[in-house]
């Protein structure tokens, strides 16, 4: 190759590299085919004719699509709820945020994503608008705090509650009502076989029903390590026994997460795992359902969103109750997600998204929402109403749970905090570390992660 040709070759190579670099840095996205807006976002807000919502693939998303269709008919727009499998939901959403324009206008994101969405400029701040469009007093204060506010307690909102959820319990009503079981329990413990009011009662019941020779076990707990499973499963015991993740304002963890109460809670939780079916120390949300449905477990810990399907499948065999208490403390792990509007959606789309959220929170819409499978509401008035409580076997326990919900950290580094917590709590459940040692190490790791990442 001559010098000139070599130079030409290098020039072409450089051109290819530049083209690739620009393609990576400046992706365009043909989102919203039905919209007449442009990527520049200069169109008038009235131009939006379609709304795209991204959510995980599960029954409540079907319900939201039905409501979306109703909204679409009223406003003469099309609403699409795009469902993504839970396993890749988070990955796809945040990869999408890497684009200059997201394919969605609204994402129904986990409460823990709030800090990341807010501090990285991915979620539209809704503070001023939300107060005018939605009657904030109508929303359950804890749902508003954990599903919409960042930083917690700041009064700044980056979301509006969508699906409200909490952890609760399902139990084998037919086993609890069985005369033989009742008399055996009475004879053994000197008290009637009944739904547990305290964690201690629950452990007694778990021990009573654990009969490996009959392939029967006491409890199926949420203990998986894939995402936040074991963290949410343990959280309600942690808080009930007097521990906590730490101070969400000062970011101080030591003294709370490794406190004597927290250690006692983890010891208790480990003991409870011993009353679960084989493999019970690593059951994800979906996996925990299996031993309960297949007649091998008396009680199941899980999110209420799963319970409508259980009730449908098992009928009168299943009953429901709220988290037990320890002393006077009763705590349930928060679930559910909030509507957040993408800053990378054009203004017209953002306006339509706001209109949808405001409509969704109207009382009449919420009354429709609670009729959908897994459609749990944040509307405090509906939650308190007798109509709601008597509508299903699980609604009374859900309404009770919403008053005592607690969430994990929602700072941008939440996933590192979750991974560390899953590892250390898991080590305690697997017997690799004593609960005290596991929590001491975890408290140090959490403080380190927080000190390196917050504030941003």
């Amino acid at each position, binding site marked *: 190759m001559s010098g000139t040709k070599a130079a030409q070759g290098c020039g072409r190579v450089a051109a290819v590299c530049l083209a690739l670099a620009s393609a990576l840095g400046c992706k365009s996205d043909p989102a919203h085919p039905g919209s007449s807006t442009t990527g520049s976002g200069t169109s008038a807000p009235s131009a939006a004719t379609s709304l795209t919502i991204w959510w995980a693939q599960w029954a409540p998303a079907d319900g939201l699509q039905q409501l979306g269709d109703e909204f679409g008919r009223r406003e003469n727009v099309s609403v699409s709820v795009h469902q993504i499998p839970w396993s890749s939901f988070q990955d796809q959403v945040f990869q999408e945020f890497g684009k200059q324009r997201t394919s969605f206008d609204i994402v129904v994101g986990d409460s823990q994503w709030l800090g*990341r969405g807010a501090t990285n400029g991915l979620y539209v701040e809704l503070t001023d608008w939300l107060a005018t469009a939605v009657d904030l007093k109508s929303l359950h204060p804890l749902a508003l705090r954990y599903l919409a506010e960042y930083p917690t307690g700041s009064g700044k909102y980056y979301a509006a509650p969508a699906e409200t959820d909490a952890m609760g319990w399902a139990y084998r009503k037919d086993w609890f009502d069985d005369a033989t079981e009742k008399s055996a329990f009475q004879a053994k413990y000197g008290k009637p076989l009944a739904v547990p009011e305290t964690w201690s009662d629950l452990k007694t019941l778990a021990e009573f029903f654990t009969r490996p020779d009959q392939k029967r076990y006491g409890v199926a707990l949420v203990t998986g390590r894939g995402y936040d499973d074991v963290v949410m499963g343990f959280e309600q015991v942690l808080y009930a026994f007097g521990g906590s993740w730490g101070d969400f304002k000062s970011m101080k963890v030591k003294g709370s997460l490794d406190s004597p109460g927290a250690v006692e809670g983890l010891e208790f939780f480990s003991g409870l795992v011993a009353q679960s*079916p084989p493999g019970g120390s690593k059951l994800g949300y979906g996996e925990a359902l299996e031993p309960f449905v297949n007649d091998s477990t008396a009680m199941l810990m899980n999110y209420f969103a799963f319970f409508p399907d259980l009730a449908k499948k098992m009928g009168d065999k299943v009953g429901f109750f709220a988290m037990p208490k320890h002393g006077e403390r009763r705590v349930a792990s928060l679930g559910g997600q909030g509507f957040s509007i993408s800053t990378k959606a054009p203004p017209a789309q953002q306006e339509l998204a706001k209109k949808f959220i405001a409509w969704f929170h109207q009382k009449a819409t919420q009354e429709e929402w609670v009729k959908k499978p897994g459609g749990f509401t944040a509307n405090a008035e509906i939650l308190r109403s007798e109509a709601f409580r008597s509508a299903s076997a699980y609604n009374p326990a859900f309404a009770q749970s919403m008053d005592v919900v607690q969430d994990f950290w929602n700072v941008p580094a939440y996933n590192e905090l979750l991974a560390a917590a899953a590892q250390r709590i898991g080590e305690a459940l697997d017997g690799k570390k004593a609960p005290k040692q596991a929590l001491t190490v975890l408290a140090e790791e959490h403080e380190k992660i927080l000190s390196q990442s917050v504030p941003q």
Partner: protein
Amino acid sequence: MPALVVLLAMNVFPLVFNIYLSFTNADLSGGAARAIGTHNYAVVFSDARYADPITTTALFVLLSVSIELVLGYVLALALRAHIPGKSALLTVLLIPMMLCPVVLSLFWNLILNGHYGILNQLLGAFGLPQPQWLTDDRLEFVSILLVDVWMWTPFMMLVSLAGLNAIPRYIYEAAEIDRASRWMVFRTITLPMSAPLIGLAVLLRATDALKQFDLVLAITGTNDETTQTLSARIYQVVFRNYKVGLGSAYGVVILVAVIAVATIFVRYIDGLNRRQGKAQA
């Protein structure tokens, strides 16, 4: 020129871009990436939790490649003989290797499930213990290893068979005339003459096993420290913690390790080829 463009677009550019990203604080969800010098590499080498994936990956490569090599070579030796239905048998043996690894992994997840998996149901039917293949710490790694061995032993067998079939027949005839024992024939003819191709197969499998991800993702999940390989760790860092810059630094370190391993193997194979060339001359 078109070939060069493809090479640049598919290999050189991603590599250069990855190295560039490893010196920045690039985030998965966008925002301007800022140069932060060697900070990411400092994090990589000071991360205590990085040691576990390294150990897991090294153990996985060593065990999986060794077992697959031995089983594959033994199968190839058996299949070299003239047996009825050899073609059909060979086709059946190759099936695991030809199917999509992720799909197979998901199937194995169902098969090995401790509660409803068909394997435990079969074991239970015969009154045998029903281990928790996917959740018991002592079995998780073994489960992934067994699936990998099932999936990739056919590859070792295929390459070994090609190596064995390439040995000229007259060498065996000469050995027969010299009344060499079967062990002597195997030790001095079969093994050394098939070694270069086996070395190549080991190189390919070792570099592939170093990147093990799909089985881990589908069978135990990327966040389970018992089976977290280096690739699974990178997935956690990039796609769960959103730290593309840090993940790129992890990737560069793995790349250097893979290049080192590959260089050792290539030199070993070259050496074998040279020795064989001299012997034949």
